[in-house]
């Protein structure tokens, strides 16, 4: 039994198509980077962390507001640089329904307090002592910023130092 | 027990040396071409030669077993042990091939290289070392021994490929081929040079201690066993009366290793020039007469067959078992560690070799060159990757 021209064409096309699909998927998966959890469009994992005074902050309590979630450390230079911008922008947008939660990666209270005092930060600063929130958000490089909308969805993930303009833009974006 | 082990190895070395002589004699005694129709008793010399080879092999097995008993673990855990074990597999593979093809020429060359390998391995620290936790597993035996067996079989293809080239490359006039072949032989001389120079200085117990500044600005100590031609960054000689280096190396390089490599090349080059000067011929030319009695098609078949036999064993040992063990010990079956990558490179190379042989155009000389390159890759993995490119996997003996 020999293949008719048409049959042969169909079989070959199907096989090639499948192969092309596999290759394309592999390349796509590789190019989209290491983050396969917690990407833009995903719901933001809920968490609860305490600040330096022992007050608890739970992310899901902020439904209805936009959240500017920033992960930082005092030893991270770009984090230091962007803090003043975030504080300034926060003061502006606080009344427009945007909250800032700054998650410290787990340094000592003293170090964090010194930092907060030095920069006069007015937004909630919580401490992820166990590192669980960093795991949940797949944090690797610092600083890392997530924009969460009023429905609890991540609309943007930004890695690296923010400029003052960007901070403003971001806050504007998650304004409910 | 450990001493017995060393003695057995030494005895094997001597026996192989004698066997080489008999293989040489066997070649001379043959009247026609060597091809596979030697299945009759063969000549007296040849029989003595293979008998001695088997004896040497058994002595080496004896070394292996006694060392296993002495150390409590399979003796394949450091550079010396592995290289020596590789030589055992190499000779073992040869014995099997000998009974298939009865080639005394193959014997001559194989044992010579086997001696070189044993000598090279012996230059490394021979102390019995205990196993670090990562090596405490049955897989040490399974993976390392199978991989070495595969490499030993593949190495036979190198020998027959080399003999092929020595026989077939026209030595009448200089050409690119004579140059490349000579380069391969030169490298063998360099290894010999390394063995001689290390042997001499180790024999005299030469030792020189240097204090130096590493790349983090910390003070460190390096102990040299060869006179220092090059020294480490910011060196300060601690041992009195020892040679002071001519040049200082940046801290990123391991000065002691560079020094050893330098010495190897110097000794090797001197040795090579001496040979050229005395013989007035290229080494390829000198060795040529030894290969005249060997049928080149048979050499080609031996090359191909050893790759065909060795490739599955190598795949199994160096890739499959390696991946299984890596998964168990390091939680990931593949990590792109330099040694893993070079095992992959070796595997891909021999896969390419087998595929190229589908075309008749690649039989014969091209195949021989490929067999030589393949062995070079294996040796690169053994020497460079183990010693120079340190990684999770290295036996790096400083």
């Amino acid at each position, binding site marked *: 039994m*020999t293949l008719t021209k048409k049959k*042969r*064409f169909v079989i*070959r096309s199907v*096989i*090639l198509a499948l*192969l092309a699909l*596999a*290759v394309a*998927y*592999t*390349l796509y998966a*590789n*190019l989209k980077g290491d983050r*396969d959890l917690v990407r833009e469009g995903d719901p933001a*994992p*809920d968490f609860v962390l305490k600040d330096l005074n022992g007050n608890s902050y739970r992310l899901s309590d902020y439904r209805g507001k936009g959240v500017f979630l920033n992960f930082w*450390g005092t*030893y991270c230079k770009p984090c230091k640089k962007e803090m003043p911008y975030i504080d300034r922008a926060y003061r502006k947008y606080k009344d427009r329904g945007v909250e800032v939660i700054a998650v410290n990666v787990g340094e*000592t209270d*003293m*170090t964090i307090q*010194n930092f907060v005092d030095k920069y006069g930060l007015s937004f909630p600063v919580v401490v992820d002592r166990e*590192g*669980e*929130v960093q*795991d*949940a958000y797949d944090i690797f490089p610092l600083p890392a910023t997530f924009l969460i909308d009023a429905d609890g969805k991540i609309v943007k993930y930004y890695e690296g130092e923010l400029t003052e303009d960007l901070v403003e833009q971001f806050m504007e974006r998650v304004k409910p | 027990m450990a001493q017995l082990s060393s003695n057995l190895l030494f005895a094997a070395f001597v026996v192989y040396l004698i066997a080489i002589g008999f293989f040489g004699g066997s070649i001379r005694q043959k009247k*026609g*071409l060597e*091809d*596979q129709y030697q299945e009759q008793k063969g000549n007296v010399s040849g029989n003595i030669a293979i008998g001695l080879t088997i004896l040497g092999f058994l002595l080496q097995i004896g070394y292996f077993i006694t060392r296993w008993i002495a*150390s409590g673990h399979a003796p394949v855990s450091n550079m010396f042990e592995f290289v020596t074990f590789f030589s055992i597999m190499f000779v073992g593979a040869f014995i099997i091939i000998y009974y298939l093809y009865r080639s005394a020429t193959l014997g001559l060359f194989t044992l010579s290289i086997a001696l070189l390998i044993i000598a090279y391995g012996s230059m490394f620290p021979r*102390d019995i070392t*205990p196993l*670090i*936790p*990562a090596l405490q597993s049955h*897989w040490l035996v399974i993976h390392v021994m199978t991989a070495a067996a595969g490499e030993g079989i593949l190495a036979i293809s190198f020998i027959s490929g080399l003999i092929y080239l020595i026989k077939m490359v026209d030595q009448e006039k200089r050409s690119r081929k004579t140059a490349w072949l000579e380069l391969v032989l030169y490298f063998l001389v360099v290894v010999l040079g390394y063995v001689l120079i290390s042997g001499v200085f180790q024999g005299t117990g030469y030792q020189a201690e240097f204090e130096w500044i590493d790349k983090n600005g910390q003070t460190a100590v390096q102990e040299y066993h060869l006179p220092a031609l090059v020294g480490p960054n910011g060196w300060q000689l601690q041992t009195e009366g020892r040679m002071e280096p001519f040049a200082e190396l940046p801290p990123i390089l391991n000065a002691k290793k560079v020094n050893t490599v330098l010495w190897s090349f110097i000794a090797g080059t001197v040795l090579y020039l001496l040979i050229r000067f005395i013989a007035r011929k290229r080494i390829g030319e000198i060795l040529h007469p030894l290969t005249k009695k060997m049928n080149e*098609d048979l050499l080609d*078949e031996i090359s191909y*067959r050893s790759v*065909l*036999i060795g*490739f*599955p064993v190598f*795949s199994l040992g160096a890739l499959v078992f390696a991946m299984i063990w890596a*998964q*168990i010990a*390091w*939680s990931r079956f593949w990590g*792109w560690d*330099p040694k893993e*990558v070079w095992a*992959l490179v070796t595997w*891909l190379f021999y*896969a*390419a070799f087998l*595929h190229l042989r589908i075309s008749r155009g690649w039989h014969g000389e091209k195949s021989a060159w490929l067999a030589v390159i393949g062995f070079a890759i294996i040796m690169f993995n053994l020497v460079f990757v183990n010693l120079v490119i340190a*990684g999770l996997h290295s036996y790096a003996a400083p």
Partner: protein
Amino acid sequence: MNQVKCECGHVNPPGTILCESCGKILVESEEKKKVLDMRYEGTARRSQTYNRTLVDKIWNFFSSVKVAVTIIVVTLIASAIGTFLPQESTLPLSVSVKEYYESEYGFAGRLFYALGFHNLYGSWWYMLLIALIGVSLVICSLDRVVPLYKALKKQRVTRHAGFLKRQRLFSSGGDIKELDAHYELLKERLRKRHYKVLEENGNLMAEKGRFSRWGPYVNHLGLIIFLIGVMLRFVPGMYVDESLTIKEGETKAIPGTNKQYYLKNHAFIVETYDPEKDKAFEKTLKERGPIVKNYQTNVTLYKAESPAVAGEQPKLEKVKDYQIRVNQPLKFDHYSVYQSGFLLNEISAMTFALADKKTGKEFGTFRVDLERPQKKYDLQEGYSVEILSYFPDFVMGEDGEPTSKSQKPNNPAFVFKMVTPDKPDGEISFVAIQQNLEPDGNNQYQIKFKSVETVNYSGLTVRKDHTLWILAVGGLIFMIGVIQGSYWNHRRIWIQRVNSEVWISAHTNKNWFSLQKEIARILEGIRLPVPQDQLKDGNKRNLEGVLDGTVEQ
């Protein structure tokens, strides 16, 4: 193109070179050859026959062995390049990648980084190479195995004369009476050598090892399955790879398990070889120093009774106790936790004393817990020490100000303010390991280091890998195929009556010498001409005289 009907009656697919059944040459150009190309039994390899559409052209491209070898070689070279300098993944996390290559390796490093080689094995083009190997595997195999299988199935015993005389091993002019006389003997000898013997009209065909022809295709299938397994790792959920650093006494959620599982580190133990007990290693241990014999983490595995959000501690119930060692991971659910590394003697607390520099008199000691340093430590009446700044991993910043590299207490440093009755405004002292600075000039008091407490951290790796079994199956099939194809040969011997002569032809896919030897043995004592290698000139391969000793070796 049309199907071709052979004179023997068999209808062949278009493009067939040798009739599938009798082997007659159907393509004129082949008749000129002395020896036939038997690699694919003369079947119409689809790709060589049809070349019209784009689909065909792509198919033909990937079905070429030359292309496959090229891809293999390129992959091989690319892989080697990635080993010249360390890959990005091996660098410590705190380092800036680009700077590292430039500062450590200079120009070579800059070039390496610029070309993207620092992350070679994860780059899109390397993946593309591997993917192309996969594509080539599929198409090469399909293109050849289907026709080959059909041809070997359809072959007849009696072959066309043109086929027989163009086999590589061939002899003619045999005496028919000799064949008749030893017919049964020949069959028996062949059978003894594991040949399957078929007869047709007094013609014999002996075949063995056909299964080894499929070896390459089986191993290709194995590789394809393996590559599919590799590809599946990208699918979210199939693969988890996390690391957990946990110190003694701590209970932490196991990352990657969504807080379902917790681990408590009871103790981390390191043992070194004892030169007294293990005498065999005495010499080595004396020269090289201590060598680690074993390290393990004694843990308890807990399961969370109810789901909890990050940052919350749920109620835990114990699952089991285990000692995690290298080569002996903790396994539960689909997860495995491996012992990968450890940090010994990390400083957890430091005890200092406030003392008068001149007299050395101490006014009290205080203990600083490096995780929870206090702002102030009261010592005696009027004596206290305040910590103004704490740098866990001290480095001098570029601006000359002290700062910290990370949050890990690798190199603790403090700025202390010593408050004493006679110095109520306090004196400032900067204290680091082996460093004591007094920024305000000569102090009267100093902080003396008294003692340190350490703790051990265990480094664990957490894995979940649903693709492992696929990779294992692929690997197994690959090994079967490679053994199947390498260690056996496919051999066929035809002994046929042609024009009142006996012709003997033989074919194998490899190891021609061995086949010749075997045939010579089979024909021993029988006066039929031994097949000669038609590809050899000068006929050094004349077997005839050798076995009966008439030709000297």
